[in-house]
């Protein structure tokens, strides 16, 4: 697949990433540190979007939010890892296609 096409496919998740970055910058600090899990729910969502895409990201985020309540045990709860990926995450968190790095 050409880089342009794969980047176009990445648009939904990048919109989600953009919203999450704004949320984490502006709104998250208002709550302070309240999450019973590590990484926090918004960080989890961000990582899920980056590695699993928009739809699965929404699904994983919803499940995590339901898990995170005052009676849950908490602890470490990472996003399930993806087998292989030819994507690259920029320093601002956005995902771009990067097929040529695959060999490295």
């Amino acid at each position: 697949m050409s880089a342009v096409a794969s980047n176009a496919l990445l648009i939904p998740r990048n919109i989600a990433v953009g919203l999450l970055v704004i949320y984490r910058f502006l709104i998250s600090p208002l709550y302070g540190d309240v999450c019973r899990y590590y990484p926090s729910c918004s960080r989890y969502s961000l990582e899920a979007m980056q590695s699993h895409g928009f739809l699965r990201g929404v699904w994983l985020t919803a499940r995590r939010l339901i898990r995170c309540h005052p009676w849950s045990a908490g602890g470490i709860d990472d996003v399930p890892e993806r087998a292989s990926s030819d994507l690259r995450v920029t320093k601002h968190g956005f995902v771009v296609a990067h097929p040529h790095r695959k060999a490295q």
Partner: protein
Amino acid sequence: MDFIGTILWPIRWAIELIIVGWHYLFTFIGLDPNVGITWVLSIVGLVVVVRAALIPLFVKQIKSQRRMMEISPKLKKIQDKYKGKKDQFSREAMSRETMAMYKENGTSPFSSCMPILVQMPIFFGLFSVLRNASDDKAGVGLLTQNLAHSFANAEILGAPLNATFMDALNNGPWQVMVIAATLVILMTASQFYTQLQITSKNVSDETKESPMYKQQRILLYIIPFMFVFSGVAFPLGLNFYWFTSNVWAMVQQFIIIRQMPTPGSEAYRLRQQRLERKGKLEVTDEGTETSGQGPRSNQRQQPMNSKRAKKKNPGSTGPNS
């Protein structure tokens, strides 16, 4: 009905039930049903119901805070391990290890965002109830046309409850602006007081060292801006709700800090001193592991570990807020 309207429907129904219930009660004991103070008191009643329902969550929170002291040596160990390492990876590894340790010990200082999230739909629900009433329309439940009309036209000190600061800026009355500004100032003051009480007094020495704690302090300086926004953009009735909720939080926190402070914190040491002065000091060893506190309180019980102390003194604390 639109999507958000559908979600808010049951909440609005419940809010109307509570407000109308209080309004009925206040009218029954002789207040004029159409004056502002009756409706403001009904809003206060709503706050009382909502916050009282949240008390079990706070009690749970306090209990887990008390358990924090049992694990404070472990927390300190992790902190020592990462002492002086300020790079991102060490910070992350430290948070990770800390969270894993909390889980292992079945306790956590965090309550998840649910207590905050629960209050948000109530806030929006009340907003839409007030908006609806101000258009002179009947509500979705018990707020009949007559009551909605009364609510919409209720005035406190000459300021209608459904007016916002922005409305008043253009076409008065000036009382709305004065009351809104006063509420914003009072809310900010009470929030500052509550947060300062928590962060400077009711936090153990170990927690004070953590990066999470430092982030928490940023809150103090962002929240006033939210109050200003709310005071300007939202109707007076809503600001009365928020103000009352704030006062409740302040009093609740005051009672907690005084009566059941976090072990190892400043407030805990002060309480120990108070008890000692009155000659009522029973459990002194709870703070020993957290090191660095008051000079004279603890030597006598040094050899006793916290488990034994607990057995000796079962249920010495209880929810009293």
